[in-house]
């Protein structure tokens, strides 16, 4: 028996995109878009710099969830694609003077390339080994970033990344304008993920997640599907990282370190893996916690660890998963 199934409990009800669910999801997406528009005007949390961070991490968590929640593959090295892409975007914007959209696309492409290389190695093993291999490979990227200061700036990171004009014409001077760019990228990314999940490809993925042996016996080339979802997830993580580099004007080692890979797992777990909106909620919760509890210093790590343990022991559905179960609708 294949034992890679890390089946998300929330996906238990039939989720073959029946009409009322997609209508509900459409409403939720419209509400999300409206929320994104008004957020900068809300006091305290409406600080655009903070919002941009939340959105970038939310997209990162969604990308990760595509692989874990729908592909059943636990990667413990997603920081590599996120961080590496942010270096590529920052480097091309700063040293080549490229416009933001080109930098972000190049960053995304680098995430995809890295995902293809690492994915083809990692899918050779399953379950725990898969997680450990992705972790070890990501650590290589970390050491590379540390030791290639010409490209990454070493421990300084790439600082003062310019926000060049969008498409060469639209200035991205202040934080609020940039925030709306990030919001658009975020929404596009999440919609794309939603589309992937509900495509025939997504259905096969779920079949593999739930029973790999059966999927093989049905004639699916399981490894190709796994590799495909790996590359997709890595590219979207790259998109998130590249956007973050432009938004916060910094690419640093923090984003390639393995603790970042752990954080994205935590965000997904808290929000609810295998749900569409879970990772977004999870990222918002974790980033707000880090921001507002920053004064506690190392206690933040302890709090995060406690949340991790609670989620694994008693709260495996996550916030959105629980709400979805309560509403009897997959979210």
């Amino acid at each position, binding site marked *: 028996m294949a034992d890679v199934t890390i089946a998300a409990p929330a996906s238990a009800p039939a989720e073959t995109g029946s009409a009322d669910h997609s209508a509900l999801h459409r409403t939720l997406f419209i509400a999300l878009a409206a929320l994104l528009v008004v957020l900068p005007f809300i006091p305290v949390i409406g600080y655009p710099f903070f919002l941009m961070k939340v959105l970038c991490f939310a997209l990162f968590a969604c990308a990760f969830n595509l692989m874990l929640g729908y592909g059943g593959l636990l990667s*413990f090295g997603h920081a590599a694609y996120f961080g590496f892409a942010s270096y590529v975007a920052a480097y091309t914007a700063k040293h080549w003077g490229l416009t933001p959209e080109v930098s972000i696309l190049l960053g995304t492409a680098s995430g995809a390339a890295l995902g293809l290389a690492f994915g083809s190695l990692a899918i050779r093993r399953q379950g725990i080994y898969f997680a450990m*291999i992705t972790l070890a490979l990501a650590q290589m990227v970390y050491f590379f970033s540390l030791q290639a200061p010409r490209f990454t700036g070493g421990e300084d990171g790439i600082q003062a990344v310019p926000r060049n004009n969008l498409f060469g014409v639209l200035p991205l001077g202040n934080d609020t304008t940039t925030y709306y760019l990030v919001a658009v990228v975020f929404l596009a990314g999440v919609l794309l993920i939603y589309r992937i999940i509900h495509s025939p490809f997504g259905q096969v993925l779920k079949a593999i997640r739930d029973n790999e042996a059966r999927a093989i016996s049905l004639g699916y080339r399981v490894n190709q599907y796994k590799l495909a979802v790996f590359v997709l997830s890595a590219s979207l993580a790259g998109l998130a990282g590249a956007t973050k580099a432009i938004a916060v004007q910094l690419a640093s080692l923090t984003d390639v370190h393995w603790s970042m890979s752990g954080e994205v797992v935590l965000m997904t777990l808290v929000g609810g893996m295998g749900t569409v909106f879970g990772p977004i909620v999870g990222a918002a919760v974790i980033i707000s916690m880090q921001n507002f509890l920053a004064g506690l210093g190392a206690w933040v790590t*302890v709090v995060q660890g406690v949340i991790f343990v609670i989620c694994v022991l008693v709260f495996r559905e996550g916030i959105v998963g629980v709400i979805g179960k309560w509403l009897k609708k997959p979210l």
Partner: protein
Amino acid sequence: MFELIGIPPQALFGQLLLGLINGSFYAILSLGLAVIFGLLNIINFTHGAQYMMGAFIAWMLLNWVGIGYWPSLLLAPIVAGISGVIIERLFLQRLYHLDHLYGLLLTFGLALIIQGLFRNYFGSSGLPYQIPAELRGGQNLGFMFLPNYRGWVVVASLVVCLATWFVIEKTRLGAYLRAATENPTLTQAFGINVPLLITLTYGFGVGLAAFAGVLAAPVYSVNPNMGADLIIVVFAVVVIGGMGSILGAIVTGFGLGIIEGLTKVFYPEASATVIFIIMAIVLLVKPAGLFGRTA
């Protein structure tokens, strides 16, 4: 022959020996992971934190209670082992019916908690721990100066590794253990208390990590982060060796230590990555690892 690559043989022997010393830590740690994985099917992400705990318990025993290095070598693993038993009973036991990946996630969370607590209490600049008086100084081996303590590390870890191997492969207790690994239900039916066996195995694995921590305390500074990065390397060691055999974990641990040592001579910049590169190659050639069984 060695002169061809520009390194005099004396220096090479010295580096080989140093590699062996580093390999000792890899070997004990990957052995502990292998023992735990064998029976619990859990990758113990807390292993690095437990290694760190071993070093800190030794430090606390010395500075708060006045107990020196030698008793600590036994006491610290026991204390850490007991904490492991508690963790297994409180948390891990609830996860056996779930996918193994939840075990990985839970132990990851526990590692965050333990490291965070130690960082809060002790800060992260590191605490000094002196080499025991009996092992100060060193021997001039002709090709290098070998500090006595480093020699002791190799001897101690070899003894512990081989003893563990002997117990698991050659004794009745080990036979129960192996039987429980193969088929827990059947073993239980023969009247062997499998849950207890599992708990004690976890405690023993944690004890091994703590033992490595005590060995490390006098040579590296006692620091809350000392295990965090090491554990990732040990994961790679485990992937390379495969989880098939106890002996495999030991041999791979020492072997990779030596390879890393050699890298430090020929191309020091790569010494942090060489193990990961080897891992990638092994995965391409032999996905199950060098000693692994194909599941």
